[in-house]
């Protein structure tokens, strides 16, 4: 179907079902129950799942296929956001031109950066992209927001004001990003028993774009172009010796992934019409690297898994505070309860980044293939035991302790 093998079609259908039914699937606990805090089925978080999923899919096309580790992809996300907000300011709140322009601008920007950075490879490439991203951040944060020429509005962040031109804006249209009149914030809530499900217009727009993006990434993975990119990853020198010029291919991959990042940035702005420079900081670039590695670089589904995983736990872990912990461990004797709370405390709430860092190190050390590889190992482990073939058992990576 659609030029895909049956396996990829099945994968696409699974992702489509998951994405379209997410408002239901992510709300497994009744509203009133104590577990409701683990629900993720509210529009804001679901939108972030999907948008960062797109970002990570794009990053994976560069890193997973060619092996070029870019540490500056957040720059394209930020540029996309700025472009989208400028469209809101100049034309109207319609998201279509905004998203289109954000993709185009991010694409042009990545041609410029890619043309220069891709002259080098390996560690130099990482440092060059890092330098470019930090430069873009400095430009957006302070340089391009002086009174004479205010492109980014500096620290405050770029946003739409009432005196902006908005030449296509008419009275009947909502004063928020909309898709030909359908506001991105309009939500249809279904109450069923104790549950309540939010079906949000903005989320579905993002989900459909995610599916298109995912489909395109499958096609790129399977195309001759994708095979060429894999060849670059495995041995670029040999490829050059055969007389092929690899640079156009790497540049194309870089620009494609930059456009994915721009698309994600445009969608972020479409969900919340605000663009700030902190989106371009290098920690944001590090985050997308984390997502891709955590999920599994070079696999189709990995980046989406990684993005969902990080965004979900970021949200849940940072909500847990000492009161919640005491509630959980209340069945224990007081001393043990306080002890456990004291142990867990540094890792939750504001300490979420610590957990993330440790998790990330564990994944890089023991599971270079990410969650996907972990799943495969567990699958193989279970499968072998069922067949009673014995011998050569895969070590269960998750049981290992950190090396430090």
């Amino acid at each position, binding site marked *: 179907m659609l030029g895909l093998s049956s396996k990829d079609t099945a994968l696409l259908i699974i992702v489509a079902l998951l994405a379209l039914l997410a408002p239901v699937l992510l709300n497994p606990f009744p509203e009133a129950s104590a577990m409701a805090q683990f629900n993720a089925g509210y529009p804001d978080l679901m939108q972030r799942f999907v948008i960062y999923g797109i970002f990570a899919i794009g990053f994976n096309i560069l890193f997973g296929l060619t092996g070029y580790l870019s540490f500056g992809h957040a720059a394209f996300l930020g540029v996309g956001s700025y472009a989208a907000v400028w469209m809101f300011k100049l034309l109207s709140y319609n998201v279509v031109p905004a998203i289109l322009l954000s993709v185009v601008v991010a694409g042009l920007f990545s041609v410029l950066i890619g043309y220069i950075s891709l002259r080098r490879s390996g560690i130099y490439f990482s*440092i060059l992209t*890092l330098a470019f991203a930090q*430069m873009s951040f*400095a430009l957006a944060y*302070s340089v391009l927001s002086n009174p004479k020429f205010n492109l980014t509005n500096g620290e405050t962040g770029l946003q739409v004001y009432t005196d902006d031109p908005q030449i296509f804006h008419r009275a009947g249209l909502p004063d928020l990003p909309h898709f030909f009149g359908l506001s991105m914030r309009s939500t249809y809530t279904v109450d069923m028993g104790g549950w309540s499900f939010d079906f949000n217009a903005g989320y579905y727009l993002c989900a459909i774009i995610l599916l298109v993006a995912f489909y395109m990434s499958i096609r790129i993975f399977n195309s001759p172009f994708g095979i060429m990119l894999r060849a670059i990853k495995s041995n670029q020198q040999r490829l050059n010796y055969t007389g092929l010029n690899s640079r156009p291919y790497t540049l194309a991959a870089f620009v494609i992934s930059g456009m994915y990042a721009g698309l994600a940035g445009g969608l972020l702005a479409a969900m919340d019409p605000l663009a700030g420079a902190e989106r371009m900081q290098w920690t944001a670039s590090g985050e997308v690297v984390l997502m891709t590695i955590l999920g599994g670089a070079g696999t189709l589904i990995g980046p989406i898994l990684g993005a969902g995983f990080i965004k979900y736990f970021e949200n849940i872990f940072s909500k847990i505070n000492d009161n919640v912990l005491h509630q959980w461990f209340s069945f224990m004797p007081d001393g043990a309860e306080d002890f456990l709370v004291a142990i867990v405390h540094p890792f939750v709430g504001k300490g979420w980044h610590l957990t993330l860092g440790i998790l*990330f190190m564990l994944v890089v050390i023991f599971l270079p293939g990410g969650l996907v590889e972990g799943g495969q190992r567990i699958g193989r482990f279970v499968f072998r035991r069922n067949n009673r073939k014995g011998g050569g058992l895969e070590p269960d990576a998750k049981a290992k302790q950190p090396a430090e």
Partner: protein
Amino acid sequence: MDAFILQILNGLDKGSAYALIALGLTLIFGTLGVVNFAHGALFMIGAFCAVFLQRILSLSFLTVDETRTDFLGNPMKVETPYVVDWFGPELGNAIIDWSVPLAILFAIPVMVFVGFVMERGLIKHFYKRPHADQILVTFGLAIVLQEIIKYFYGANPIPTPAPRALAGAFDIGTVIGFDANTIIYPYWRMIYFAFSLIIIGGVFGFLRYTTFGMVVRAGMADRETVGMLGIDIDRRFTLMFGIAAAVAGLAGVMYTPINPPNYHMGMDFLVLSFVVVVVGGMGSLPGAVLAGFLLGILESFASTSWATSALPGINQIIIYLVAIIVLLTRPRGLMGRKGVMEE
């Protein structure tokens, strides 16, 4: 002319920090071939060694002084640091006052130990893996280290002043023949510059004039041959990692009076130090030092009012611009050797 000299002086202290961090990075890269993204975290840990020692020395106990009363009329509670109690007020207060220089002595063993644990416990397992994996795992380690520091010391910068005797500024202009009050330079920054020169000289001397250093240099040139001669080069490289960590840590200790340390200072310096290493030439120790000072001074010139009025914000991006130009025109850096990481 006086403004010119002042800008050079202003660039020196930042340049010293860049040079020291870049020196450590290059040492690690040259010996172990590992790109260490956690090096900024080592700089930060060094700075927090100073904070830690200051806190330890200022530990105090409360006594009630019946002879004086506070503004509510109650007997005054007096905090007496233990050191003052033990060594008497004069020596005790002097020890607290000089906690930052004392922290140097404290930081050296701590940093060597941290470096040793890092190398043996983690980085050792990554020699055979691709550079991307090394970057990623050290990046993760940097996040973990900085979050641990944040957990213990909070997110705000912690003021760690220099000893009072060194807190003032010196009118250099009068010494070299300018009018008074034209070139004023704080004592501590002068000390920082001198200190960094001593450290840099020490590292170079160690590598140049000791047998140990000679073996290490031989190992940097050709690790396998040295190994075949029956020398345990891995052990020496581990020690070099410890030394590199100590250099970064000392840079951090001495930087605390210039800039109050916070948990992300390491990351802020790391990005720039990488740029410095690349500009200087990957694997070249003199290149790292030279580029560190050059970029520090360049940044200081770009921050002058005439530079920022001509090109607003040039001070924010000048280092990156220079790095990009250098990488494109002279890819191996200012003093890079041929064949080192040139792909």
